[in-house]
């Protein structure tokens, strides 16, 4: 697709793209290239000499059970966050899609958590579920649960998933609502005339028609769980206790922070890059389909 009416100028277009191009090359491509180069190098303990080691850093990484566990954990978190947040948001969106009085008010009251920053989400949830002073922990303990996410890895993981899913409800709700409103009412009426009860109408008509939205949101939620949970994890558990809440992004951060293995940290970055490329690729394929849909 190209415009027919254009301007003629030799230098102006370059001047116009120059600022963006400069930032992109200096702060995006150069560091990414550095990460790729670094991932093939091994630095000695004093950082005085480096040797080219081919894929040694990668091999070592995949031999490390901790890294493997971190991959599994990240996928598990993504799955749990996406499923819990999507199903709750879908329920709310289906309800809000009905012709109810005050539906705009409902929408407003449900979308604002989108604006809450991940580290703040972490602070809010750790406060409510803090082992010694949390307002909810009291009831958990009264119910006989030995609640201490600061010591128990599984509880810490549950807490991260809960907080991360909470933040994502508003985003999912908004897109589900838009998706539901785009479904032609005549289709649902036809199903109703055929005698389909509301529940059946939902599963046989609404749900399939909503599948492009569900798929799109699934990808967005996975990307979110990969990257944006960093702030939540950092304020709530810092990857602990042990390594029970250390996701891939958190691992890159904490491994590099300890100033340890630069080559390994770079190799981890490169693997993450590949994952983002795959996820973005899936997302774009889908967008094409949505256009033709």
């Amino acid at each position: 697709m190209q415009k027919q009416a254009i301007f003629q100028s030799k230098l102006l277009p370059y001047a116009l793209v120059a600022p963006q191009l400069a930032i992109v090359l200096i702060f995006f491509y150069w560091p990414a290239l550095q990460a790729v180069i670094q991932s093939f190098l091994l630095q000695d303990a004093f950082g005085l000499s480096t040797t080219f080691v081919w894929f040694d850093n990668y091999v070592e990484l995949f031999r490390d059970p901790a890294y493997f566990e971190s991959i599994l954990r990240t996928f598990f978190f993504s799955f749990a966050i996406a499923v819990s947040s999507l199903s709750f948001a879908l329920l709310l969106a289906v309800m809000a899609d009905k012709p109810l009085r005050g539906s705009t008010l409902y929408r407003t009251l449900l979308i604002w958590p989108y604006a809450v920053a991940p580290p703040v989400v972490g602070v809010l949830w750790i406060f409510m579920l803090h082992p010694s002073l949390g307002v909810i922990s009291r009831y958990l303990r009264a119910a006989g649960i030995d609640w201490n996410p600061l010591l128990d890895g599984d509880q810490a993981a549950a807490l991260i998933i809960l907080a991360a899913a909470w933040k994502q409800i508003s985003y999912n709700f908004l897109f589900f609502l838009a998706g539901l409103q785009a479904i032609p009412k005549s289709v649902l009426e036809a199903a109703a005339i055929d005698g389909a009860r509301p529940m059946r109408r939902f599963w046989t008509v609404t749900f399939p028609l909503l599948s492009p939205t569900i798929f799109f949101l699934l990808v967005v939620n996975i990307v979110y769980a990969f990257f944006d949970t960093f702030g939540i994890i950092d304020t709530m558990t810092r990857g602990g206790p042990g390594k029970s809440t250390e996701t891939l992004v958190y691992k890159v951060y904490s491994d590099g922070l300890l100033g340890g293995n630069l080559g390994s940290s770079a190799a981890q970055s490169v693997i993450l890059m590949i994952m983002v490329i795959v996820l973005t690729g899936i997302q774009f394929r889908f967008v094409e389909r949505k256009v033709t849909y």
Partner: protein
Amino acid sequence: MVEEEGFRRYVAHIILWIGIAIVAFPVYIAIIASTQDNALIANGQMSLLPGGHFFETYYQTIFVGTSGSTREPVGNMMLNSLVMALLIAVGKIAISIISAYAIVYFRFPLRMPIFWIIFITLMLPVEVRIYPTYKIVADLHMLDSYAGLALPLIASATATLLFRQFFMTVPDELLEASRIDGAGPLRFFWDTLLPLSRTNMAALFVILFILGWNQYLWPLLITTRDDMQTIQVGIRKMITTTDALTEWPIVMATAVLAMLPPVFVVVVMQKLFVRGLVETEK
């Protein structure tokens, strides 16, 4: 119209209110905690009703900070966050709109390669290039500066794509007309294209402002001086000290203050927000 019986409607209202309660509960607790006495909270005796320390806590939070040795007024953190958010939002829009203009309205060698170079940055979020980017910013002596906080985040493939799409829909006749009037490329951009893009810019601004205000990982890395801290980083540092010493009312007041600007933007500019969100995801 599909019949919606009274009973089902009733259920829908109830489910929505339960949803709203779940969504609002953590924030309610934060607001309540920020008005109560620290000793009471630390003992796990927090009440679920507002306490009497509202003014005291917020005054101390905004103007003084925590009682620790590295105290920093949260007011100052908010200022840093505001400057960073505005620089990011305005910067992204500015550099994206001019590059989209060049790509759509000019033919020049390397036009498509440049477009792809910008486009591919979608796949390079800051999380995958943390330390190399940090090193470059350090080498450029931009640690602890607004430039360091904002510049590396200012490129935007999404915004560039959005403006490119919008410019493609602008009728060619407008350009012909302004050319007859003797306008050059800059005049056309300034007098015709920019006013037409106003709604798009506003919608984008709302989203980018929230995005900028909520930045966390990047400011965490490149700010070492307390007076350059953003509020998101500051709040994390408040709960690093041993639990017993954490001043929860101040932490919660800071959380409330950190939420206030972006939530305000979402609620007040809801139409633009929704539009921006949907547009940037396309």
